């Protein structure tokens, strides 16, 4: 069974089809890099996979189940364009809150563990509004990984990250892949993504123009997929 299966998904904004009959799959333990120009539909597709919005037609399955099922949501970790943590709460309060919402046995202990793994243990009681951008991004990474999700959906995760946050995220993603977790990430930073990706999908104007294994050629020349399958 695929970890993530997208089957004939359409999404309309008014009359405009943002996604047109998208079909792709990601096997458990694989890393799929979702690439495409601005407006290609990457964010829309990831949001549907995460269960934030419903497709107009077609369906998404996470381990065979709809993404909005409670048990399925437990398996998904998401990093979007926003950091999705509260400015008015401390780093520890934020992670403890999400630990409770995900039903972790000991939310505070898990929160402390992830603050340490992301290098934020010294500022654990500091309010997020006082954090630098890089620290906020690392906290967002900790929030997404906190509940040990089986599927990680990351929307342009390397954008606006500082060097340290990129290193933290790449290390965590490699560990997650080594543990058999599935990663789907949309990105414009092809080199970083292709270093991790086992598969590549190219979205072009809402359609999946290519979906297949990542090859050494692609890693050597990240523009190759666009040149061959996109609009050049």
């Amino acid at each position: 069974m695929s970890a993530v299966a997208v089957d004939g998904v359409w999404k309309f904004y008014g009359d405009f089809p943002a996604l047109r009959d998208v079909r792709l799959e990601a096997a458990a333990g694989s890393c799929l890099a979702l690439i495409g120009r601005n407006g290609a539909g990457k964010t829309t597709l990831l949001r549907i996979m995460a269960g934030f919005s419903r497709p107009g037609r077609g369906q998404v399955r996470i381990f065979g189940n709809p993404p909005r099922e409670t048990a399925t949501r437990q398996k998904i970790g998401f990093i979007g364009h926003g950091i999705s943590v509260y400015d008015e709460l401390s780093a520890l309060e934020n992670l403890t809150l999400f630990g409770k919402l995900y039903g972790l046995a000991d939310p505070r202990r898990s929160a402390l563990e992830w603050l340490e793994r992301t290098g934020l243990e010294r500022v654990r009681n500091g309010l997020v509004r006082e954090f630098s951008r890089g620290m906020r991004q690392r906290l967002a990474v900790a929030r997404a990984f906190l509940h040990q999700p089986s599927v990680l959906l990351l929307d342009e995760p390397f954008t606006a990250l500082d060097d340290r946050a990129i290193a933290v995220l790449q290390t965590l993603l490699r560990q997650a892949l080594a543990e058999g977790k599935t990663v789907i990430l949309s990105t414009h930073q092809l080199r970083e993504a292709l270093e991790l990706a086992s598969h590549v999908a190219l979205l072009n104007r809402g359609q999946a123009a290519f979906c297949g294994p990542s090859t050494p050629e692609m890693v050597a020349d990240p523009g190759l997929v666009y040149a061959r399958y996109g609009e050049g």
Partner: protein
Amino acid sequence: MGFFRQVLVIAAKDLRAELRTKEAINASLAFALVILVLFSFAFDPTEDTTREISGGLLWIVFAFAGALVLNRSFARELPNDCLDALIAAPISGAALFLGKAVANFLLVLAVELVSLPVFGIFYNVQWTSQFWELMLVLALGTWALTVIGTIFSALTVNIRLREVMLPMLTYPILVPALLGAMQLTTGLVAGRPIGPDTVAWLKMLIGFDVVYTAVSLVLVETVLVG
């Protein structure tokens, strides 16, 4: 985690965030007190007619002051896309809604409880003679306000003019509950307990709360995800 524990976690989070920033509660409280004081200059507090409009006056103040709290309820989730994280979490939309409604209820009730003594002083009204019945009406009316306000706060959260849209959507639906609360409050403030002539308003207020809470709990998932 159980449903009610999820509700408490969401309510505690909202209350903690609000008590740190005091954005909504300060604005709401200041608004309520200023309106009460200004109206006290417009009416002669010794007149019986002034006491006869006391219920209406109080609930208009509570409804408008409450809107300032309710506007922030889901708007609080917009910075940093926190609403996405809540929708992604394995909790039901109903728990999310109820948690927010409970937090809003407590905040609006706090504003009302501070406003009442001010009302008593400036309007020369002995409002405590039917204290517990008045508290019951206050709780029922406030729950009606918060349950309707919270669901519309979720509905309008992504609208640019949500501060305008929320009252426009909320108040027309609230009319029956506000009428009931006004009638009951006027009688109680004047020292008349709830009797056979006013008990129908109480039943209507309870029915309103039950029906709209149930409808909101059913609809909130669709409102949030589509």
